[in-house]
Each structure stands twice: as structure tokens, then as C-alpha cells.
């Protein structure tokens, strides 16, 4: 295996995996959050803006994560406290994030920015990439709160019988998903691209959603799936660099076509999805 290719693939896989791990926890609790794309975008913009305004990279990162968590809070209020349909709320948040980041970006920076940011080393994100799946695996399978999380997504009534609040568990999971999406977005703008571009997440949040299915709701499955995806993406950049005559639109289309193909081949036929996924819990 080409080590250079693997490194490029890893850099592409990092934001997808971090976002997907957040979604894994959310889905394990029985909620489907299709707005990680939007939350990533919010994280990307606000961390960029934070670093730009404060000049302190870690503070900017924190601002981005907080902004994404606020979006998750909004999602939680609508899907759990009210509760409304998760798909519709997710769609609305995606639109809100697209509009909010686009408008704020144009307001502060015009259409383009050449602002260069102080670099954050990707050591933090790389270690997150390798250790977060392990930590989540231990949390979900070997701890009591992890068991409660799993149960909330499988048999919510049993959790309630045990004296735990399904809503509280789900709300916590959603907020954790927000933190992850915010970090993933921040990685894109502050570490990877070192700038912000409108709509820069470019569907990565949706690919992360697909990876949760592809990785069968298992942290290590997600790790493998995201690496597979990252390397395939890197391969495409390499094809482009080799000057093979492929229209750039086809190259941009491929990750989505690949995701679709993977879903078609490894669809949910054999299960693995939490049984109460997407069903609001009502006492």
C-alpha cells in the first residue's frame, strides 16, 4: 500500500469518521439526525471565524464546537421536548445552517477570503481518529450508561422501567453528536483547508450518515468504513493528478455514487439498526 496515499486518505477520513461516531451515538439512542451536515457547516464557519477573530486556534475551535452544540440543542428541543418528526427537523436545520453560514460569511468577509489562520497541528485530530472508536466501543459495550444508551435505541420502555429517562439519554446523545459534528467541521476549515468556503462540507455529513449504516452501527466498523472511503477519495485526487482525462464533475460525483453503490450492496438487509431508530418516545 502506498503510504502517501494512505496519509491523504486518512486526512480525508478524519472529519467523516468523527462526525459519523457522533451520529453513531445519536442513532444508538434511537434518534436519527440527518442534520450533521448542517452542524458540521456551523462548526466549520464558527471555528474559522473564532480563530480569525481571537487569533487563538484552540479558542476558535471551542467557539465552533459551542455553535454546533447550540444547533444540536435546537434539534433536541424540537425532536425530544416537543417532539416533532426527526427528518423534518433535520432538514430544517440543514437549511438554517446553509443560510446562516452563507449570510454571515458574506456579511463578514464578502464572497471570498484570503485570510490565513494560525495552524493547528492535526495531532489532536489524528489521535481522536484512532482512540475515539476504542473509547466509544468500551463505553457502549462495557459500561452501565452505555448499556442504557443502547437500550434507549432498542427497547426504550425497558429503560424507563429501570428508572432512567429515555428523553434525557437521547438528549445527551444528541448533544454529543453536536460536539462531534462541530469538531469535524472545525477540522475541515481550521486544519484541513485553513480557510472557509461557502458550503464547504460538500455532503460529507451525508456520507457520514451512510458510513454509520455501512459500518453496521459499530465503532470499529465505522473506523474501517471511513478509512475505506478516505482512501478511495484520495485515489481520485491521484487519478486527477496523473492527468487522466476525467471531467472534474465526474470526480466530484464519485464519492456520492460510491456511497450509493455501497449502500445498495451492503444495505440494511441483515439488520444491525437500532430497533427504535427514528421513533419518538412517548410515555
Amino acid at each position, binding site marked *: 500500500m502506498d503510504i502517501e496515499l494512505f496519509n491523504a486518505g486518512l486526512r480525508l477520513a478524519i472529519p467523516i469518521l468523527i462526525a459519523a461516531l457522533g451520529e453513531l451515538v445519536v442513532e444508538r439512542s434511537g434518534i436519527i439526525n*440527518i442534520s450533521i451536515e448542517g452542524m458540521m457547516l456551523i462548526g466549520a464557519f464558527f471555528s474559522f471565524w473564532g480563530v480569525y477573530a481571537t487569533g487563538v486556534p484552540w479558542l476558535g475551535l471551542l467557539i465552533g464546537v459551542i455553535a454546533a452544540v447550540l444547533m444540536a440543542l435546537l434539534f433536541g428541543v424540537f425532536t425530544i421536548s416537543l417532539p416533532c*418528526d426527526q427528518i423534518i427537523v433535520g432538514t430544517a436545520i440543514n437549511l438554517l445552517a446553509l443560510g446562516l453560514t452563507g449570510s454571515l460569511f458574506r456579511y463578514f468577509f464578502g464572497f471570498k477570503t484570503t485570510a490565513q489562520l494560525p495552524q493547528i497541528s492535526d495531532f489532536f485530530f489524528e489521535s481522536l481518529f484512532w482512540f475515539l472508536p476504542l473509547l466509544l466501543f468500551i463505553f457502549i459495550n462495557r459500561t452501565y450508561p452505555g448499556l442504557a444508551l443502547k437500550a434507549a435505541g432498542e427497547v426504550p420502555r425497558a429503560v424507563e422501567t429501570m428508572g432512567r429517562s429515555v428523553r434525557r439519554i437521547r438528549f445527551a446523545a444528541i448533544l454529543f453528536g453536536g460536539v462531534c459534528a462541530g469538531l469535524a467541521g472545525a477540522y475541515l476549515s481550521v486544519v484541513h483547508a485553513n480557510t472557509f468556503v461557502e458550503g464547504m462540507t460538500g455532503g460529507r455529513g451525508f456520507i457520514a450518515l451512510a458510513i454509520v449504516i455501512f459500518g453496521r452501527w459499530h465503532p470499529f466498523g465505522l473506523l474501517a468504513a471511513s478509512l475505506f472511503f478516505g482512501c478511495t477519495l484520495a485515489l481520485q485526487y491521484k487519478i486527477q493528478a496523473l492527468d487522466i482525462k476525467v471531467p472534474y464533475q465526474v470526480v466530484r460525483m464519485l464519492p456520492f455514487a460510491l456511497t450509493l453503490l455501497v449502500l445498495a450492496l451492503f444495505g440494511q438487509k441483515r439488520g444491525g439498526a437500532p430497533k427504535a431508530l427514528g421513533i419518538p418516545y412517548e410515555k
Partner: protein
Amino acid sequence: MEIFYSLCLGALVKLSPLLFCSLAVTLAFRGGLWNIGAEGQLIVGAIAATVLATQPWSLSGWLWTPLVLTGAVCAGAFWGGIAGFLKVTRNVPEVITTILLNFIAIELLSYCVHGPLQESAQTYPMSDTIHMNLELPVLGQDEVIHIGIVLALLFSFATYLFMFHTANGFKVRAMGQNDRAVDVAGFSLKKIRFFLFMASGAFAGFGGAIELLGVSHRLFERFSPGYGFAAIAIALLGRLHPLWIIVSSLLFAFVYAGAGILERVAGIPSTTLYIAQAVVIFIVLIIGIKKNRVSYGH
């Protein structure tokens, strides 16, 4: 007064693509299918229509126009059908597939207008104009109100009749409320879901062709400024009722036309439109909390 007049005209023009997409969304949502892909279905419909409409044939418009519309309907139905097929055979959530298909359609459109469908002059990334015979007839002296708007209204009414006055329409609504009941009654959920997805895609594809023949007359990259996404907010605001969505489409058509004017006059960025759509969805959700407790899908 002049601005108001041009606002009204602009809104009427926007009504047709918005209404067709909202019909697509309404149909799918009513059956408990989360078709987020009206945008992509509209785009492939428009691409297919452009392919057929820029051929060097010498056909009469009466023969050619139905051909173009049929092509667009098939393309839209095919695009929706992919999501439907994956849903019923592989149990892949349609939310994800339709969103992915949107991305693919947008890139496909970009490829087409830069490549095989680019104008013969090869200057700008847009297609040739469609053949003269294919331009939809216009009404009134301003020559912007085309017959497609009337068609959109007729289709809304037809969808209303289908949904509330036919057995198949009842099946669709029943599936959205309680799919087990439909299953137990002996109907094939897979079959209904698959056909519903095709029908939904067909509506959006048809809307794409009408927009091409009636307004833009040629294909370019930003052919759809998010009609398919706005349609979700419109359909929900219209309570998924084929007649009420005429009203909500009109409202959004005014917002679209107004946003265009505001951007020109006051420099307010068009991205605020997305915020407006999100806010509308949130307001509808808050107003309808009691109703939403019984969710459409499950």
C-alpha cells in the same frame, strides 16, 4: 407600483416549478416516504428535456412538446425510482439515497452544460436554446406568464382528486398513517412505495421540463435555485394538502421573487432565503405540535 407589479409577475413565474416540486414532496410524504430529492429529480427532468429539445428535428410543436415532456417525466421517475428501488429491495433509508442523488444530479448538470450539452458556440457553460416550436405559449401582453402555470394548478387539482377520491390515493394515505394496516389488508407495501417514488420523481421531472420550455429556454448550472429544497417547507406549510400547497407555493413564490429584488435593490444576500425556509418549517412544527405527535411516517 412598478416594483409591486414586477414582483407579482416574478412570483407567478416562480409558482410553477415550486408547485410541481411541492406536489412531488406532498405525494411522497403523504405515503410516509421522505423524498428529499425533488431537487435532483427536477434537474434530471430538465436535462432529459434539454437533450430532446435541442435536437435538429423539424417536428411540429404539437408532436414534439409531448415527447419532451414524456422524456422529462421518465427521467424524473427513474431518478425517484432508484431511491424507491433501494428502499424496497435493500431497505436503504430513502432520506440518504435521495440526498445523495441530489448531489449526483447537480454534478451531472454541471458536466452536461460544460460538456455534451454545451451551446454550439462553446463560450458559456449553458446549453443551446430550445427549438422555437417548443416554447410554451404565453398569456397576456407581458409575455412571461406561460401556460405551464395553468398546468401546475390543474395537476394540483388532479392530485387532490387522486389522493382523496380514489382507492389508490386512500392506500397511499393509509400507508403514511399506518403501513402495517395496509400490509395486513393484503396490499404490497413494496409495490406502492416503489410506484409512489416513481410518481413523485415524475412530478418533479415534469416541473423541470416546464421550467425549461416556459421560462429559461436553455439549461445552465444554477437552473434550479433550490426549488426542490424549498418544496419541503412549502409542502409542510400546506399541511401536505394538494390544494393548500397552491397557497403556500404562492407565498414562497413571492418570497423568491422578493429575494431577487431585495438582492438587487438592497444587497441582501440570497442565502437568507434558506434561513426563511428553515424558520417557516420551525413555525409550522410549533403550530402543529398536537398533530405532529402522530407522525406521518411510522
